[in-house]
């Protein structure tokens, strides 16, 4: 009787081990040959002391024209007052053959703990100049516009936001 129970337990154990081995092997060879191109992106680090916020609705309304308004909300989430916050906004093209960049600057003198301030920019988002002899934008997929905003304080606290804008000529 005891021998029969041991034989049954041994058989069950052997079955479980064999099944596990088959499942592991199946998992190894079931990997799809298709590849994903998407690289692992970097979402970046947020700085709790200096936070920048952009209005998605306003971003969606931007066109490739001069005099486009872009408002930025800066928030002091740290534990001490921030002074002399410098903002640099740079507009460039995804097309790296277009070397022209447009720069805009602003300053916030003081920002108390826990408060926010609105910083407004008026941007020229009209298409950047094509160098002589280069392929014209009509020959390529429409290059995206890159708006890079950097805020820094004299104490070295900084924050960056990069906006990728798929501006269309008819927007």
């Amino acid at each position, binding site marked *: 009787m005891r021998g029969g129970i041991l034989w049954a337990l041994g058989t069950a154990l052997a079955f479980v081990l064999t099944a596990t081995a088959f499942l592991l092997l199946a998992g190894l060879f079931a990997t799809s040959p298709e590849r994903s191109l998407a690289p692992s992106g970097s979402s*970046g680090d947020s700085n709790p002391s200096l936070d920048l916020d952009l209005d998605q609705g306003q971003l969606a309304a931007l066109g490739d024209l001069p005099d486009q308004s872009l408002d930025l909300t800066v928030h002091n989430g740290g534990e001490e007052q921030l002074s002399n916050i410098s903002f640099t906004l740079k507009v460039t093209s995804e097309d790296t053959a277009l070397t022209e960049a447009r720069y805009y600057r602003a300053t916030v003198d003081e920002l108390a703990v826990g408060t926010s301030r609105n910083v407004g920019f008026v941007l020229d988002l009209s298409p950047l100049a094509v160098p002589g002899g280069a392929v014209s934008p009509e020959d390529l997929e429409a290059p995206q516009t890159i708006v890079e905003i950097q805020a820094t304080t004299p104490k070295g606290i900084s924050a960056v936001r990069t906006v990728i804008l798929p501006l269309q000529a008819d927007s």
Partner: protein
Amino acid sequence: MDGYVVEKPTDASYLRHRTTRDFGAQEIEWASGDSLAILSADLSKRDGTSSAIYRTRQGDEILSVDEVSTSVLAMSPLPDGGLLIAGEEGASASALATTDDSGQVSRTYPSLVQGKVSGLSVSPDGDRAVLAMRAEGSGRFAILGFDLSDGTSWRIADLPRDEEVFGAPQWTEHGVFYVAGEEKAAQSEDAAPYYMYRLPLDSGTPGPAPGVGEDFVASSLRASPDGERLAIVGRRNLNSPTDLYVLDLKTDVLEAVTANENMEIKTSPPDLSWSADGGHIAIVARGILSGSRVYQVRAGALLADFYNVYDVPVGDSG
């Protein structure tokens, strides 16, 4: 890259050499082991109406170029180095010539091809070439064969009226493969899509390419260096995302080698290339961008939002 040319070792993250940014490059091929052939706007004319071929010289930082030929319509690398070039000859004809791997014109073929060559490629053994040609006047496209040893050409097939060849037809031992569709389809979302065809070498009657399925929408294709496989950028059907596929021409088995619902692969023919050993395919792709995106990093740290060259390992044939 964006109309200029950079040289980057595949095992390094830096760009070793680059041309000036306003170069206007349209297509690049290896002309020899250490030199690139560049099809570009003719730098001496600057009006964008004529193309020329330039060959790179090694430099310290700027990639210097020498002019090889002007009034060029199309080019294709030869298997043993050098290029086959189609150039404009008058208003309605094309002339063919080869260059050696030093960039010098080594042979000019006296017989002209009637029509303007829009794309060409050389067979894997280097003996023949296949040309897509557009007749002046009627505007009708045709596929021509060309014998590189004696310079004779022969008509393989005429395309239906109002249909155009997209890119260069590919010569393989299993037939000539090409992508064609209604003219202006590439510029219009409403126009009929492009499809892939095969012309058997002993017949002038094209048929749908075997193995891909009747709904397959092709954008660009390129034969592997041994001519046994085709790299294809296309879609399984009109509602599928664009992916890279490899068609085994011996077995007619189509394999999807990317699965990228969130990536946009560039579909122009020069943006698809095999490595010399046939083990890798280079494509250009970026993330699909449906609206504005905000990131908490500098633009230089972003990758997926911009076009990058991707190396896709595909293994050896057979």
